[in-house]
């Protein structure tokens, strides 16, 4: 007989052991998938690991893939902590990218030290405004923020498509010869290129450093301030929070705006660090927002763990791109991310509950 009962207290070691255990189980499941479909798991994992983490060029590419996941992971973590399920990180990232690209194009001619802060601010503004739509609806009409933010992802993707493919918008390149063949965004001015920091042989994108700073700020905010305390009380027990006089409505607006702003900065970082134009197709194909939810869940909403998990999943994504080809199973990255998330979700149960195996008592004989 298996019994599942709630733990009265959660031992600290469990919150580290369970995610690691989840990863191990996910890899075992992946091995089974590979074996069943006739691939050699050892070679596949080896190649995956090699092209994700071994060598400085590989690591640099992994940093680039990890950066957007860090932002969208923080975006999800910040909101999910309050049981506010903002799954609109995807759309908020697009809107941030749109705003930041507009800003970069508008202020062309200014030096980099001005361009970058303007892009960050505009990206944050765009993401926050877009996140405020589900926030306002939730705060004032009790509309389910999950569905609204999910639907808005598609609206944002369509807006992005419209700006580049189906209109002569400010963002679209209408002059260069390549753009006449295939529609693309205007190239951003050089001053809008975010710098790389060199440490040893490694190149850290500016966005990654910014994301790490934001992770630190979020950690301080959530574990050292009254605001963070109230957010967690509202998340754990909304009724207790309202009896204590906490203003839930304001918190919903603030947390969603913060969450959206972080995703929006992620969009700005895509413009500045990587793409140097408003890349409609590239952004919507990448699915950073949804992967960010995987990151946040696996990190158990801890901002520093988000950074670590983003690095790990970024590596897998990067390796997936590099290895894409005839002899490497495509779709492997999605399967693996999915499996990791399934296992992390299953592992949550072990953190909150204890499983007891009891021997069924022999039926008492009636004398």
């Amino acid at each position, binding site marked *: 007989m298996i019994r599942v*009962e*709630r733990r009265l207290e959660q031992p600290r070691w469990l919150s580290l052991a369970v995610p690691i255990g989840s990863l191990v189980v996910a890899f075992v499941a992946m091995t089974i998938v590979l074996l069943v*479909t*006739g691939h050699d798991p050892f070679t596949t994992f080896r190649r995956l690991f090699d092209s994700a983490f071994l060598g400085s060029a590989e690591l640099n590419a992994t940093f680039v893939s990890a950066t957007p996941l860090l932002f969208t992971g923080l975006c999800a973590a910040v909101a999910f902590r309050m049981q506010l*399920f903002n*799954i609109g990180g995807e759309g908020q990232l697009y809107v941030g990218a749109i705003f930041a690209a507009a800003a970069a194009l508008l202020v062309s001619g200014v030096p980099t030290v001005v361009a970058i802060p303007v892009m960050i601010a505009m990206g944050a503004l765009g993401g926050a405004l877009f996140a405020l739509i589900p926030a306002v*609806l939730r705060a004032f*009409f*009790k*509309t*389910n923020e*999950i*569905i*609204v933010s*999910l*639907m*808005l992802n*598609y*609206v944002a993707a*369509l*807006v992005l*498509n*419209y700006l580049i493919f*189906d*209109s002569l918008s400010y963002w679209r390149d209408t002059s260069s010869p390549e753009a006449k063949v295939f529609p693309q965004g205007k190239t951003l001015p050089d001053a809008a290129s975010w710098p790389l920091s060199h440490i040893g042989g490694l190149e850290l994108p500016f966005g990654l450093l910014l994301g790490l700073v934001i992770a630190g700020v979020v950690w301080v905010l959530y574990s050292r301030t009254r605001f963070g305390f109230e957010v967690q009380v509202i998340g754990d027990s909304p009724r207790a929070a309202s009896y204590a006089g906490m203003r839930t409505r304001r918190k919903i607006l603030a947390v969603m705006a913060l969450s959206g702003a972080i995703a929006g900065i992620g969009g700005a970082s895509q413009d500045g660090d990587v793409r140097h134009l408003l890349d409609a197709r590239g952004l919507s194909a990448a*699915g950073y927002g*949804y*992967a960010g*939810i*995987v990151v946040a*869940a696996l990190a158990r909403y801890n901002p520093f763990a988000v950074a670590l998990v983003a690095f790990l999943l970024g590596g897998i994504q990067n390796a997936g791109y590099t290895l894409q080809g005839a002899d490497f*199973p*495509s*779709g*492997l*990255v*999605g*399967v693996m*991310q*999915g*499996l990791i*998330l*399934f296992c992390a*979700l*299953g592992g*949550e*149960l072990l953190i909150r509950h204890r499983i007891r195996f009891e021997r069924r008592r022999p039926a008492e004989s009636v004398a």
Partner: protein
Amino acid sequence: MNNSILVVVLASAVTYGTPLLYSALGELVAERSGVLNLGVEGMMLVGAVMGFWAVQTIPGPGPLVLILSVGVAAIAAGLMALIHAFLVITLRANQIVSGLALTIFAGAGGLSSYLGNDLNLADAPAKHAFGAFFPHGMQTLPVLGPIFFEQNALVFVAWVFVAGVAFYLARTRPGLNLKAVGESPAAADAMGINVTRYRYIHTVVGGAFAGIGGATFSLAITPQWVDGLTQGAGWIAIALVIFAFWRPALCLVGAYFFGAFAGLPFTLQARGVTIAPELFQALPYVMTILVLVTVSAAGARRRLGAPGALGTPYVREER
């Protein structure tokens, strides 16, 4: 007359609405049991790829192969739903995260791409496909020809599904029990209904419906396998369930309504009308948000049909 824009749009509404209808009905059944499954897109794609694989592999006469292939699609997608069911019902995982995980796992760039690639399904024409169900002579009839007689069998089977689900929910004992489970699992449990079993069965059956929806793409609308074939239809199906207030008959209307938006840009483009297709494509999402806001602002959630226990796990000891 059959080329008039209204007829063409209505015909494409029925064509593109059908996969939405299957998937939305499946999601409706799952949500009525209290399980929200955001993995529809992933389940549809797995259904589409496995259905296409079956049609290419199973030998035999066309109609039989097609029926079997739809069955394969349903089973494959049902298995995907089983993962979600296990996580959210037995392990009490967060339904939203688990559903999204399912889409990441199974959807474009996940298992469906993996299978499509591994089974070498891309770039091959389908050996069999669902064609028009009625004889050719009837397809040229005015108005009804393109809208009705040119449609394939899956369109008509979908109507049977709508009637079946409506009847099941309103008139049968298990259907009424299902609604009780979704509305108030504790009360249902007290009545002696096995909440866990009901939720498992209906989540998996709902997934199977989504698989048929996916197969509608790969076996009828565009008989081939392309990565990410469904192009977000799964998300529209989730929206549709809300739009239809969790009622099967309204699902039928809503599916064709949303289907029209999917078909309209192509129709207009063919006629040289240049309206940005994004405008129509965004409408289902925007309208769903508006419906959702209206419903929640009116505070009439219950009356309008959202299951009371939607999205919450049921734990007997903690009720």
